[in-house]
Structure formats: structure tokens, C-alpha cells
């Protein structure tokens, strides 16, 4: 036996490494736990290397969809039937003068020779594996840093299930020269797919690791970087659908170049792009549709419906109700352009910016108007939630509750709607980068629209510099979850007409967001909101009047 001691690597080697003079460091767990074959050494050991293609399930988890054996290794030890004595004789013959050996018996020489053959066998095996197509794939999967629907696994058995002729035709076979030992013969062979290109060429669904990193608020989450791409909203439709949803990553410009899994895209579409519609803008919106009051809830209803399919793709941590932005998502409402605006940065920007104060008067007004409309005319769901949330507004609520409500709300849409209106309202609060959670909660619990308006005005007055809101456009997910838990308001999705959200809205908003705000602009916004408040207060005074007064006030606000 060789007993190397002078090699450079011997110092740090493990005892196992010296078995075949191959220092392999740590063995895979599968190897450590592998004990199947030992029980019966005479059975063949069949190791199938399996390529598994997974598909995203509703929980965004990858489920095995199909699999294929890409390599089959067969190790077999055949004991000599009746020739043990013969081999023993051979063993004795093997002693030669070359053994130097004075002290080495012929048997020892034979063992040495056998052992040396094993050493060579395992070296060639080590090299051979790296030349197989599967190794290349294995290497790529390990080094890509992406979640891929392809994965490799193995299966150990003692029976050989023959391949179909078709499969076998695609395979090569290599048989290592068997090694004879005094008691038997060890043979090793492999069948492997000649090429994996046809399998690999199928589209994969790389999900960037940023999915998680961004989510936990890593430093990579740079809102400004995100917003940089805002003006380039007109990306391809495909990219739109491939934007990630819950990572809240700002770096979507880079992501856009990465093809993402459609199913992922779905979930993203839900999470990120909902809010754009939330920003529902304002001016054109109100101008185009006579009853703005209705149009807003309507939007919400449409959003819910559209999002229903997306809900299924939310990962478990995000229950549908916990989606902060989903209620506002209006994919169906938006023009193709709007939908194609694509990069999720935009969506994010549009999703949370809104809050009145922050950015543009028009968008802010619009949103506020919507909120006010919603508060007034409601679509609130009657019941404890409403009472709790808006006790003093009960009259309004009751009145509004008489409005036709959706009877077709499914569980998913219901879950969305449970928070959607609140989202609309609270979203402005929560989305407000410079309004803390407490403020928003307070505003939510106020008892009259006036108080709400007051809270908004207060929020505006205490707002941090407007630029800051850009950095806060993406809020930590827990905020959204909290928000969703607040059951203040629910939508009535029924009997609402779909309102059109102009395609240009996103662009306008995007450009607006990019502009730096000055204190003067902020004051101007504040002034507008004060006017708006007054207008609403007037409406409150004449509350007994019909609900159509709402649009008027909205119109006035627009003009202001």
C-alpha cells in the first residue's frame, strides 16, 4: 500500500482521503448517509441521476413536474463463483522481484497492485464525471445563484429498470475496466445522455436572489436607482409581466433584462402593479367619467377581479389580504401602454407614492378625492368593522350600504376587498413616506371625513422633504401586512363600472416623481389640499343632498 506522507496535501487530509490517495474534502451528505448497498454487496448498485423540471405552484414553490434520467451508474461486485482458490493462486503468482521486496509477500504485492488499480479507477472516474453533460448543468445550477426549475437529484436502487429504446438511443455508455480482486470483480459502468441541450433549452424561471434580499430591506434596495428607470416606462410587454412582485426591489432595470417566470410575473403583477391604478389619477379620470364617486370603487372592483387569478401565486407569507397594493391594481383598466409600462419600478412608484402631499398636486388631489369619495359614498361593508372604523359616519355608511353590493365576490376578491378600500385610504397614509404608521392609523380611525381631511392636511404639513418620499416608495412588507389587517373598510365591488385609467397617467406620475420638489411647490400643494378640504366640508354641510355633489367637488378640485 502506498503511504504517502510527503505530498503537500497530506497534512490536511482526512483518514478517508488516504484510502485512495484522493483528498476529496467533505463528502456529500448523500454519501455519508448512504448505507443501502452495504447490506448486500452482491446486488448491483444502480444510481440514477435525475433531472427534475419543476413548475411553480400556487405558493410560488417549485413542484416537480417532470423528470428524466440523465445518467445511470451501475456498480456491481461479482464474487468469483468457484475460483477463489484459483485467484488466491494468482495472487501468489503476483509477487515479483520488483516489489523490492524482501518483506512483501506475493499476496501483498497482489493487493498493492489491485489497490493501485482502484486508485487509478477513481481518478479516472473523478475526471470522467466532469466531462459529462450533466456536470455542466450541475455546475451551472450551483453557480447561477438563481432559482431554476431544473434540479438534479439521484435515486439509488438495486434493480435496473431498462430504458426505452428511444431513451437508450440518446445515451452513450462507458464501461470502466473491471477490477479483479482475490474474491471477485468490481465493475462500474455508466449510461449518460449524450446531450442535455434539448432539456436545457426549455425556458427556465430565474428568480433573482434579490427577491429575498430586497424584501428584507437590504441596502440594495435603492429607491432612486429604481426610479431612475421610471421614464423608461415603455418597456416591452413581456418584461412587464415578468417583473417581480413582492421583492419591492428597486433595481428592476436590471431585472427587466432577466426573463422571469410567467407565473412569478403574475404574482408580481398583482403586488406591484396594483397600486398604479390606485393612483388612479385624478384629473383625466374624473373628467372622463361622470360619477367619479362610483368610478373609484369600481376600479377597486375591477382590480379585485383581475387580481383574483394572481392571488393564487402569492407565497404563503403574503395572504391575499395582506397584499398592500393589490386592491388598486387595475390591469384590466389600463391601456396596453400602461400595462406595458412594465418596469416594476414604475409600478412601485405609482403604487405608493400617491399620497397627496408628496408628489404632484394632480395625482394627490385625485387620490384624495377618491378617498373622500369613497368615504362619503362608501362601499363600506356594514358591520362591526365599519362601526369600529367609522362610528360617527354611520349614517353615511348605512346609506351607502344600501347601494347595490357585489354578491359575486369570491373568497379571494373578498379578502382583497376586505382591505382594499382601506388600502385606498390607508395606502395613501401608509404609502406616504413621511407619515409614520401611527399617523396613518389614527387617520384611519377618525370618525368623520372632516377629521380625515384634517389628518391628511396635518400629514402634509408635517411632511418631510418631498424627495424623501421617493426613497420610501417601497415600504417594508410588514407595513403592508399591518395595513391589510386593518379591517376598516371593504369594497363593494358590485355594480361598478370600469373606469379607464389613462395610459399616460403612469408616465405623468413617473415624470412627476422624478422632479425635485421645492418648498414652494409643497406649500402650493398644501394650499390645494386646504381648498379641497374646504370643499369637502361644504359638501359635508349639505350632506343630505345627493351624492352627485361629489363629482362636482372633485371637478372643482381639479380646476384648483
Amino acid at each position, binding site marked *: 500500500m502506498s503511504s504517502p506522507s510527503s505530498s503537500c496535501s497530506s497534512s490536511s487530509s482526512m483518514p478517508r482521503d488516504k484510502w485512495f490517495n484522493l*483528498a476529496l474534502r467533505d463528502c456529500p451528505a448523500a454519501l455519508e448517509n448512504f448505507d443501502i448497498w452495504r447490506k448486500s454487496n452482491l446486488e448491483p448498485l444502480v444510481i440514477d441521476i435525475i433531472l427534475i423540471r419543476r413548475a411553480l405552484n400556487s405558493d410560488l414553490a417549485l413542484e416537480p413536474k417532470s423528470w428524466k434520467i440523465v445518467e445511470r451508474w451501475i456498480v456491481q461486485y461479482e464474487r468469483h463463483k468457484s475460483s477463489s482458490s484459483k485467484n488466491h493462486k494468482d495472487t501468489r503468482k503476483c509477487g515479483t522481484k520488483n516489489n523490492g521486496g524482501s518483506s512483501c509477500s506475493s499476496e501483498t504485492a497482489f493487493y498493492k497492485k489491485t489497490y493501485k488499480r482502484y486508485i*487509478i479507477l477513481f481518478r479516472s472516474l473523478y475526471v470522467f464525471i466532469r466531462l459529462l453533460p450533466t456536470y455542466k448543468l450541475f455546475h451551472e445550477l450551483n453557480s447561477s445563484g438563481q432559482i431554476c426549475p431544473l434540479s438534479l437529484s439521484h435515486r439509488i436502487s438495486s434493480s435496473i429498470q431498462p430504458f426505452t429504446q428511444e431513451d437508450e438511443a440518446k445515451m452513450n455508455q462507458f464501461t470502466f475496466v473491471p477490477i479483479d480482486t482475490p474474491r471477485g470483480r468490481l465493475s462500474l459502468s455508466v449510461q449518460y445522455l449524450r446531450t442535455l441541450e434539448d432539456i436545457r433549452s426549455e425556458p427556465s424561471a430565474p428568480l433573482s436572489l434579490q427577491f429575498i434580499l430586497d424584501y428584507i430591506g437590504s441596502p440594495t434596495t435603492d429607491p432612486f436607482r429604481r426610479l431612475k428607470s421610471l421614464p423608461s416606462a415603455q418597456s416591452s410587454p413581456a418584461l412587464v409581466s415578468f417583473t417581480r412582485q413582492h421583492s419591492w426591489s428597486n433595481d428592476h432595470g436590471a431585472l427587466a433584462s432577466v426573463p422571469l417566470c410567467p407565473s412569478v410575473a403574475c404574482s408580481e403583477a398583482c403586488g406591484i402593479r396594483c397600486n398604479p391604478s390606485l393612483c388612479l389619477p385624478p384629473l383625466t379620470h374624473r373628467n372622463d367619467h361622470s360619477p367619479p364617486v362610483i368610478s373609484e370603487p369600481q376600479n377597486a372592483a375591477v382590480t379585485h377581479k383581475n387580481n383574483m387569478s394572481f392571488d393564487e401565486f402569492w407565497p404563503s407569507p403574503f395572504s391575499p389580504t395582506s397584499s398592500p397594493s393589490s386592491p388598486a391594481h387595475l390591469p384590466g383598466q389600463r391601456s396596453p401602454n400602461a400595462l406595458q409600462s412594465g418596469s416594476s419600478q414604475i409600478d412601485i412608484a405609482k403604487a405608493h407614492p400617491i399620497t397627496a402631499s408628496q408628489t404632484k398636486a394632480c395625482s394627490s388631489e385625485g387620490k384624495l378625492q377618491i378617498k373622500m369619495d369613497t368615504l362619503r359614498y362608501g362601499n363600506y361593508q356594514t358591520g362591526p368593522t365599519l362601526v369600529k372604523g367609522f362610528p360617527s359616519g354611520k349614517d353615511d355608511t348605512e346609506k351607502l350600504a344600501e347601494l347595490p353590493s357585489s354578491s359575486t365576490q369570491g373568497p379571494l376578491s373578498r379578502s382583497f376587498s376586505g382591505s382594499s378600500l382601506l388600502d385606498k385610504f390607508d395606502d395613501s397614509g401608509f404609502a406616504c413616506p413621511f407619515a409614520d404608521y401611527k399617523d396613518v392609523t389614527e387617520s384611519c380611525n377618525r370618525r368623520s371625513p372632516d377629521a380625515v381631511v384634517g389628518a391628511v392636511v396635518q400629514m402634509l404639513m408635517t411632511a418631510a422633504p418631498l424627495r424623501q418620499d421617493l426613497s420610501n416608495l417601497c415600504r417594508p412588507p410588514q407595513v403592508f401586512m399591518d395595513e391589510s389587517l386593518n379591517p376598516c373598510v371593504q369594497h363593494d365591488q358590485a355594480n361598478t363600472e370600469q373606469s379607464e385609467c389613462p395610459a399616460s397617467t403612469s408616465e405623468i406620475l413617473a415624470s412627476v416623481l422624478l422632479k425635485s420638489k421645492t418648498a414652494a411647490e409643497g406649500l402650493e400643494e398644501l394650499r390645494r389640499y386646504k381648498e379641497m378640504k374646504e370643499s369637502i366640508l361644504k359638501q359635508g354641510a349639505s350632506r343630505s343632498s345627493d351624492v352627485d355633489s361629489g363629482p362636482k367637488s372633485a371637478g372643482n378640485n381639479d380646476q384648483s
Partner: protein
Amino acid sequence: MNCETCQLKELVVEPPEIREVLRCILHTILFHRALGLVRPKDVECELFDITYVQCEDHELEKKIDEKINQFIGWVEKHPNRKSQVCISFYEVKNKHATWFGNKIERFYWEQWYINLHIISPKPHGKSHNTKAHVVTGENAFEESNSRCAALESSLREVLFQIIKFVNEKKDHIPPLQNSEIVSYPYEISTPSSSDSSFGWHADVLKRMLQTGHPSMLS
């Protein structure tokens, strides 16, 4: 002792590819003959989509690189030729002491011939002013890619050939005599030193005969 010889499949290479190809082949051969305790090191070729294995040993790596540099230097002087690089494993045996000291004799037991056909890279039009030139350049690029892919495939075949050889030919390997990583003495011969079958000494003798100046030895 018989000497097993393996003639590896000829590879058509351009000069920039020589280093990568030779490293890949030489390290693979030596890994199979490094029967001491070795720590394998995976190396990904820079030019080809191939992973080969080498012993994690700086000295070994250095020695191989030196020989490759030597060969590349020769190729620069002798372009567009078929040439061989040979790696031989041998045993050293002392013969009886003579007047002139101990005589060491080498017994070669294995030789690997790496056959290379070195071609000059096709000039890609340096001027891309005209559309024709651009098209030509594109074609040349595609051709180069295609050739590179073919070389990669051939190189892979050579590696399989090595594996096959080491599996089939084992009986000729002498017993281990040391515990070095590469268990057997070996030499890598390149055209510069192997033009003559007598090796370096023959070269020196030839020079002496040609010039008659002992100073040439320096």
C-alpha cells in the same frame, strides 16, 4: 518492461489555444499518474466549456507551464506545423558503478504523444469600413466560433481517450517507489528538445560538432 504508448488524437489549434489545450491534456494525464495523496482541483478552461482536473500542486503546475512556454516559443519560430508534445514516465535504475561514476538509466514505461496541428489564425479584416468587410468579418467570426467548437469537441474526445487508456492499460505501471504526488518520474518533451531522439545531450554534441566551440555549452 514494455512501454505503452498512447497517440492522442490530433488537434487543430491556433497559437492562442495551445496553452489551454496543453494544460488540459497534460494535467489530465498527470492526474492519472499522480498516485500519491493528491487534492484534486477542478479547472475550467477559459476557452472551452470543459472542466478538467489537476493536482493541487504548485510545483507541478509550474513545471508544466514552463514546458508549455517552451513549446509556444518553438511554435512562434516554426508556425503552421504539425508537432508533438510527449510526456513520458520512466523508472530510474542505477547501473553498476563505473570509472565515470554511477550510471543512471531510464526505463520508459509509458509515453503519451499529444499531436497538435498548429495553424495560423485567419486574418479577420482589420478594416471594417465597407459592408463587404463587415460581412467578411462576420463570416470569419462564425467560422472561428465553429472551429473553436470543433476543437472543444475534439479536446473532449482526447480526454475521454486518456481515460479509456488509463483504464485499459494498468498492468505496465511499475510499483510505487516514492510518496511524491506524481509517483513516477516523468519528462515532457517538446520539439525544441526532442528533435533528436537523443535528447539534450545529443543536441549539445551536435552543436559541439558543428561549431567546435566548447563555449557553446554555456
